[in-house]
């Protein structure tokens, strides 16, 4: 029943988009000879996810992941922001099992929930989940209210407190809006891997399509014990952990 509603919804949106295209009448998007074609919209046939194996992931690996993310997305160079104001799209966290006292190091970022609390609370629909499961901030709609930051159980979002220049060409960022891990959507859409996954040479971080039975991540999740952080919240995260 739920499935049907969803399809209905998609159908309706497609119709709506089509009519928008006709309103801007006479415009055909093919122009320059060398112009690449637009890609098709993403669908829910895929769901992108990541599996992080805390046993295999060294502290150095985590630092590499953080550095790769900063390098790719251009955050971390803020000069006027202090302490908590600084952006942190991906963080190194230590978790201690209260019973066994065992400490593991984790890389924690947006968990790309299927039921994202940030999307629920956003008053402008800026917080959004793409059909393929990637949770983003549509900064064009973000008014900087930061409800999403309070709603996120993973403290995964940051707010830009200062004017920025010289951003990465593929990652516009600016004062007064919220930002977080985009799962390197600009790379994923080109068929590439997120920068953090690429930065780790072992298979401690696996990125892929959770729904594809032939994918490495799907098969590994089937075979090893894994967990979601704060699984009790039933958010069905796209980022999973093993070895904790």
């Amino acid at each position, binding site marked *: 029943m739920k499935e049907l509603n969803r399809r209905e919804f998609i159908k309706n949106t497609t119709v709506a*988009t089509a009519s*928008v295209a006709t309103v*801007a009448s*006479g*415009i*055909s*998007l*093919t*122009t*320059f000879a060398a*112009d*690449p*074609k*637009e*890609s*098709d*919209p*993403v669908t829910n046939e895929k769901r992108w996810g990541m599996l992080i194996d805390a046993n295999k992931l060294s502290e150095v690996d985590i630092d590499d992941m953080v550095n790769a993310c900063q390098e790719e997305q251009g955050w971390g160079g803020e000069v006027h922001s202090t302490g908590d104001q600084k952006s942190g799209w991906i963080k190194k966290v230590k978790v201690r099992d209260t019973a066994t006292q065992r400490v593991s190091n984790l890389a924690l970022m947006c968990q790309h929930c299927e039921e994202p609390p940030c999307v629920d609370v956003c008053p402008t629909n800026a917080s*959004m989940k*793409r*059909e*393929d499961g990637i949770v*983003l901030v*549509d*900064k*064009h709609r973000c008014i900087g209210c930061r409800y999403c930051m309070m709603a996120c159980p993973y403290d995964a979002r940051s707010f830009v407190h200062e*004017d*920025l*220049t*010289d*951003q*990465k*060409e*593929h990652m*516009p*960022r*600016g*004062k007064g*809006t919220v930002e977080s891990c985009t799962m390197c*959507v*600009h790379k994923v*859409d*080109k068929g590439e891997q997120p920068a953090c996954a690429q930065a780790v040479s072992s298979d401690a971080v696996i990125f892929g399509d959770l729904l594809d039975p032939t994918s490495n991540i799907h098969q590994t999740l089937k075979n090893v014990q894994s967990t979601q952080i704060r699984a009790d919240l039933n958010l069905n995260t796209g980022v999973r952990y093993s070895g904790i």
Partner: protein
Amino acid sequence: MSRLLIVLLSAMLSITAAHADHHIPNLGEKANEFKDDGKKAHKREGMSHAASLIMQRKMHPELLSHKRDKTLRQGVRGGYTQLQKCVDCHTSVDKNGEHIPVNAPDQFCSTCHEKVGVSLDCFSCHRTTPAEDM
């Protein structure tokens, strides 16, 4: 009565004509190369080049906002209207070979806007010069 109408009409026409050759914005480095190569920028299928340029002039805000929603919310990438591409073509280079931000005074994305009193917030986030490795 009809004479008055003609006078009015021709007055309006001359205003538009004056406006048309009046605004010759600083096209930018790559755009100038493009034009000098005899290529027709912004040419749309089934439309003359002149009409295509008018379309671009009039419709670029709509095209851009339509495209930004499609890119962000549906993951539609590539194609013709990408803000970074406008920047890549329409930025100029100063005496020292450094790129000038496309929204700086007298640069392509600001001349017309100053005239019509529009101010954009796009470039508080979007890069104002071509990508580093270009």
